[in-house]
């Protein structure tokens, strides 16, 4: 249980693609190994109205990296005078992580957003910035293996926003209920061309 620094605080993120929409969901636990300290943590951060970033792993690095990205994005907006594209942001995340190749940030990010045309964009990376692009779903966190299992079972192509919310919620809840280090609440964000809708799930608090 205490073997990896990536599992020290616990937590997980799941992002799925639907028809012209994406959902990104996470649990809300903050713990120190087996002890649960907080049940209202945020690990999904809004980049703009069409892009969100989920960060799992060591909590201190999650917070530090979030502030770092806010800084770089503000500069980007000032220089480019436009919002960043999902693919470009994903690249920014990857190069930030790789810049610390030999003393890494202990986080595993998930980028979820919509392109200008409204097509879903999903990207998960490991702690060194190696990207994994997917058309269906991406997962990260202490129960990643369980999330792969539930997502593979429930996902199908061309889900509407309402269906996508249901599929994402059920996949996340079923997986965290089998993990000691994740859970204690859950949040789901659904990104469509009309904006972001946020819902909190009623989850097991154990």
């Amino acid at each position, binding site marked *: 249980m205490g073997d990896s620094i990536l599992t020290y605080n616990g937590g997980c993120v799941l992002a799925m693609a639907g028809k012209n929409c994406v959902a990104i969901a996470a649990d809300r636990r903050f713990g120190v190994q087996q002890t649960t300290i907080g049940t209202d943590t945020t690990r999904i951060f809004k980049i703009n109205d069409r892009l969100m970033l989920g960060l799992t792993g060591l909590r201190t690095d999650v917070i530090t990296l979030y502030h770092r990205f806010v800084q770089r994005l503000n500069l980007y907006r000032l220089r480019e005078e436009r919002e960043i594209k999902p693919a470009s942001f994903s690249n920014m995340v990857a190069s930030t992580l790789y810049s610390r190749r030999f003393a890494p940030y202990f986080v595993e990010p998930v980028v979820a957003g919509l392109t200008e045309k409204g097509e879903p964009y999903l990207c998960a990376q490991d702690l060194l910035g190696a990207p994994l692009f997917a058309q269906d779903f991406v997962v990260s966190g202490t129960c990643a293996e369980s999330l792969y299992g539930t997502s593979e079972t429930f996902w199908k192509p061309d889900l509407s926003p309402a269906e996508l919310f249901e599929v994402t919620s059920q996949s996340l809840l079923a997986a965290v209920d089998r993990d000691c280090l994740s859970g204690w609440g859950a949040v789901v964000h659904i990104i469509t061309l009309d904006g972001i809708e946020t819902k909190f799930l009623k989850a*097991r608090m*154990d």
Partner: protein
Amino acid sequence: MLQGVGVAPFKSTSEWLPSILEQQHMMGTTIMAVEFDGGVVLGADSRTTTGAYIANRVSDKITPLAERIYCCRSGSAADTQAISDYVRYYLSIHELDLDDWPLVKTAASICRELCYSNKDRLLAGMICAGWDPHYGGQVYTIPLGGTMVRQPYSIGGSGSTYIYGFCDAHFQKGMSREQCIEFTKKAIALAMTRDGSSGGVIRLVVVEESGVSREMIAGQDLPSISAE
């Protein structure tokens, strides 16, 4: 210095086996037993883990040793299952010789003997509780080293650390059967909320002269914790 082509690069399987295959089934747990006049209440959560994966989320950690004697198990699932099987076996033979209800102290003593003699190889924390006609309801705790101590109530497992304060504040001598049940439910619910290794459902067993009753309290029926 031995030199040869057949030297293995790894010293043990833990270096190359994925951790989920190496790790034992553990019951990082919350267990509890409370004595009342005429019997005992035993309570436990239902989570068994392999590392951080929950191998069984509805396990039963309250096992019968005799008709009116039960034990709560924490620590290694394999060790505690083996110990309770041995205790049940020895106790059943003893019961035939005795031709009477076995004493709770006897069951606890057999448990203690196994835990103490094999202390270097076992990881087992057990609470042995039940009823006998001579001394009524009794709770005996047998933690890791093999000590045996009788207590009015006992808590154990990894989740118990979170509820010492609650139990110290809320326990009173001479509580009724119903008060003991409520006390146990609330304590275990609190521990399950804080301890990652505890969770699932609350299992309650009430042992008294008239018989044994079992209860399971699932998620939606758990006592509410006000801090949410």
